[in-house]
């Protein structure tokens, strides 16, 4: 009887340890970014930065003006999603290289590395507090991931940014809007370098 009781208490303790372990918040819950939600055209204040997404365009060919000539960037199986936005840093110079476009099925796309960094609003250049910067964020994605896509702009580099402010922006691309954007995708889009807003 005592032996059985001992085994029972042991099992209960194991159960308690397992339960306590599950109740401990994981890294994402303890240190994940602090999100603010908004939509296209809305000025969003995340507490750490403000952002206004002005426009979303889709193209299969991009033109990149250079010092001496203009070159083209073509995507064969995918499309270029070009988001134009104005970003104002709140506290200190930061980068936003973790910014991504999240498809409806949860697939995340980082800003394209094929596009020069002086064009990408969220890569390379740092944003200074109180000084608006206007530019584009360019993603290369499969066309069927366009409908329902959401832009997530988060402060900090990849691997950093604990409790970082993050803007989750509904781009308003439902099925019909996605079809309209894809229908117009054959028109090339010209990229412009990041500038002061």
């Amino acid at each position, binding site marked *: 009887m005592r032996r059985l009781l001992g085994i029972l208490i042991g099992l209960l303790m194991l159960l308690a340890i397992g339960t306590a372990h599950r109740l401990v918040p994981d890294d994402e819950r303890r240190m994940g970014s602090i999100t603010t939600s908004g939509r296209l055209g809305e000025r969003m204040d995340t507490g750490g930065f403000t952002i206004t997404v002005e426009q979303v365009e889709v193209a299969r060919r991009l033109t990149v003006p250079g010092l001496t000539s203009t070159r083209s960037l073509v995507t064969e199986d995918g499309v270029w999603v070009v988001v134009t936005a104005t970003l104002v840093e*709140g*506290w*200190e*110079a930061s980068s936003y290289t973790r910014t991504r476009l999240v498809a409806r099925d949860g697939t995340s796309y980082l800003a394209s590395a094929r596009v020069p960094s002086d064009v990408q609003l969220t890569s390379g250049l740092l944003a*200074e*507090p*109180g*000084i*608006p910067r206007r530019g584009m964020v360019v993603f290369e994605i499969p066309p069927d991931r366009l409908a329902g896509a959401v832009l997530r702009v988060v402060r900090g580099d990849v691997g950093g940014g604990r409790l970082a402010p993050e803007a989750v922006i509904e781009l308003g691309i439902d099925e019909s809007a996605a079809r309209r954007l894809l229908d117009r995708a054959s028109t090339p889009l010209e990229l412009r370098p990041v*500038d*002061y*807003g």
Partner: protein
Amino acid sequence: MEGELRGGGRRAAGPLGGAAGTRRPARSGRHRRPGRRGDLFYVLGLVVLVPLTVVLEYTLEMRTVRPPMHEAVSVEQGAKVTYAGAVWRLLGARPGEPREDARVPRDAVVYYVGISITPRDRAASRRIESCQVRVVDDEGRTWTSAPFGVPDFERFGNPPTGCYATGEGFSREPIEPGRTQAMVTAFLVPEEAVQALRVQVLVDGAEPRYLEFRPRAGG
């Protein structure tokens, strides 16, 4: 051989029959369980070793972590202060004239800061070489050096823009010990922030102290 077998047979023929053959020999005094004194050593060992391990782990961990810069040494413009083995003085801090030939955004200004530095010895010269200068406002907003091409350092005679001396060409070297060197750096800040700006100087290894200069109005 046979005798040995018979011997075993004799043990089995004891008063308890076969059970007597499996009985363990009596324990000698050397194999007795430790007494209270032995238990006390175990407990004392735990009491000493566990805290010792914790302290050792904490000490080793803290050696790799530098304390944050959280102790400001406030200095008025023009006053001298010793920090990180050098004497520092804020010469001036003010916004520059509007520039037509540079990309300065609307409602923003280029804010110039001049500091004089006199390292006491060679170690200090090397230590301060990678100093960080920044400006902050009352809201805690922090600005680092303005992007290349925005400030006009020619109007100051192209002085060093950091805590170093310039050598031949574009080379930089530590300031000569005992020599006073002026540096000028610049920040791109919103116009509305200028009145509240303070200049901070941070040197690696001088944690937790950093300098905070309060510029005079009008620079």
